[in-house]
């Protein structure tokens, strides 16, 4: 397992290099001037553009720029944005908030999704199963921002139960509704995956054996059935950490949360793409590590799986 983990970590390097290069290339090299929107409606004076290009190193060849980016990334220097605010300090403030929001979303996803999936899978075709299937279908069809605005309007404006926007410190209580919005899509998928694998595994030999041995229903479901049925759901939750970050851009923008996603939302609105490169690189790293973690978790859940 140790050797497997090391090999997988080594395999991450080319993917990571490729992705960060692609991101750098697209933000700085594609046709279209990154400073075009900096001077209001007028075109920018050449002197300004040249000064900015020199400051951000755009006058050098792409490989040199990329080398500088990598060197700076490894030393923790993420540069400054167009207004000379350090990117690293902005990230440092917003990172914990996004992690908190993301963890809450994962917990909501896992608890509600798996519970709903197990309940509907055990009583297939029953009333509860139909209710859960239809509600997951509806959740799947609502884009994250529609759920976000709908709950903000319903709870924040009409019923006045929550504050429509979250305060800068983002306390736990104010994050519950945004975390639910963020989790909504994956929650529906988790519920469906769990349901499918519960239905499949219920017919398997080991469950029949366990019932024949005279075990209580609770033990059959809780120990034998659940442990095997959780693998697809956990894989899904792990691999979708990346898409959770996509949702975080929208959710944090809607609820004005001061996290990574909110930072990106504001950067896009201010036409300042300097911060996009380091954030995107970090998010890709998170995504790849989450995938690796899930692969390693397989072995814990299912002892039959061996790592070569």
């Amino acid at each position, binding site marked *: 397992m140790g050797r497997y983990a090391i090999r997988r970590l080594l395999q991450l390097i*080319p993917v990571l290099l490729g992705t960060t290069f692609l991101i750098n290339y697209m933000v700085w090299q594609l046709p279209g001037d990154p400073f075009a929107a900096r001077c209001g409606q007028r075109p920018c004076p050449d002197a300004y553009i040249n000064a900015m290009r020199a400051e951000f190193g755009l006058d050098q060849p792409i490989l040199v720029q990329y080398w500088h980016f990598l060197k700076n990334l490894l030393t923790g220097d993420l540069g400054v944005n167009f207004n000379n605010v350090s990117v690293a300090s902005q990230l440092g403030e917003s990172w914990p908030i996004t992690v908190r929001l993301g963890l809450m979303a994962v917990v909501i996803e896992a608890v509600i999704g798996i519970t709903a999936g197990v309940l509907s899978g055990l009583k297939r075709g029953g009333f509860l199963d139909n209710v859960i299937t239809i509600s997951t279908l509806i959740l799947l069809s*609502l*884009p994250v921002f*529609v759920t976000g*605005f709908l709950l903000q309007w319903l709870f924040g404006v009409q019923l006045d139960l929550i504050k429509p926007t979250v305060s800068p410190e983002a306390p736990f209580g104010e994050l519950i509704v945004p975390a639910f919005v963020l989790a909504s899509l994956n929650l529906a998928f988790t519920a469906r995956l769990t349901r499918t694998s519960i239905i499949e595994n219920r017919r398997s030999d080991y469950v029949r054996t366990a019932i024949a041995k005279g075990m209580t229903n609770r033990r059959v479901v809780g120990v034998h059935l659940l442990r095997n049925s959780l693998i697809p759901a956990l894989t899904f939750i792990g691999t979708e950490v990346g898409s959770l970050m996509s949702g975080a851009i929208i959710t944090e923008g809607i609820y004005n949360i001061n996290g990574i996603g909110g930072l990106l939302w504001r950067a896009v609105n201010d036409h300042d793409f300097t911060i996009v490169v380091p954030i*995107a690189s970090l*998010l890709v790293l998170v995504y790849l590590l989450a995938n690796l973690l899930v692969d390693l978790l397989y072995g814990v859940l299912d002892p039959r799986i061996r790592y070569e």
Partner: protein
Amino acid sequence: MSEPTATQDLVQGVPEPSAAAPASSGKPRSLWHDTWDILKHRKIFWISFVLLIVFLVMAAFPSLFTSKNPEYATLARSMEPPSSDAWFGFDLQGRDVFARTIYGARTSIIVGVLATVGTVLLGGVVGVVAAYRGRWLDSLLSRIGEIFLGVPYVLGAIIILGSVAPVQANPGKTLIMTVVIIVLAVLGWPVLARIARSAVIQAKHQDYVQAARALGAGPFRIIFKHLLPNSLAPILVYATITIGSYIGAEATLSLLGIGLRTPVISWGIAIADHTRYIRTGAHAMLFPAAFLSLCVLTFVMLGEAVRDALDPKLR
């Protein structure tokens, strides 16, 4: 999105050709015939089918639904709530929300369908080539796909759209729609490539493919006559669901201000224009949002109904 796992489900859902032909009435029955037999008894299929027709008619002939001009603005009526005169009220510029919502269907459906066609072509070609050639080409294409999957799609779209079509620039209607369609397809192809790849790998070693090869069939004949028809079902199902999610994605990008923009009439733009007026004029946002969600629901429901009908395990 559920890509990795949905992929497995879809691929497992391809029935063996022999299993789909129980000679009950003497005539051999095709997979599609069987599927249709199941589908026509499904309520959910008919609901989504009728909704689909309604949305398609709405996209093709919006004037059948409303006689009002969606571009006509009376500032004096700005943000007027719904009334018997204007069912959905008026938006910030004093334009009729109902008319704009009806006219918005065309943009969303065009973007959704064309982006899906692009995804299927790009992903299908990459997946089939990767699976058919195998070896280093397979691992190279799979790694490239992973790089694209590694970037969350909203982030990828921000990166590409932010640098290609700067936010304040004013590209024409067709140009910006083309750019958005290309971006969605470029970010979405790896998932389809995986589906096509695993479907082809499954079919590649079947006896009928070996037989065709032994008879001297070239790679093009094997791919088009033998491999593709058997991979069609999962690709078709995924494509239907993808149309729905691309319609949602288009609206998300418009909301961020990097997708479609104002001369275009779309649900996403209507929502984006009114996010700041959620206290005073939620109607200008909620009605387009409802149509958007219903349209996405239609495609997702249709795709799932077909997938369930194709799945031999549920028979």
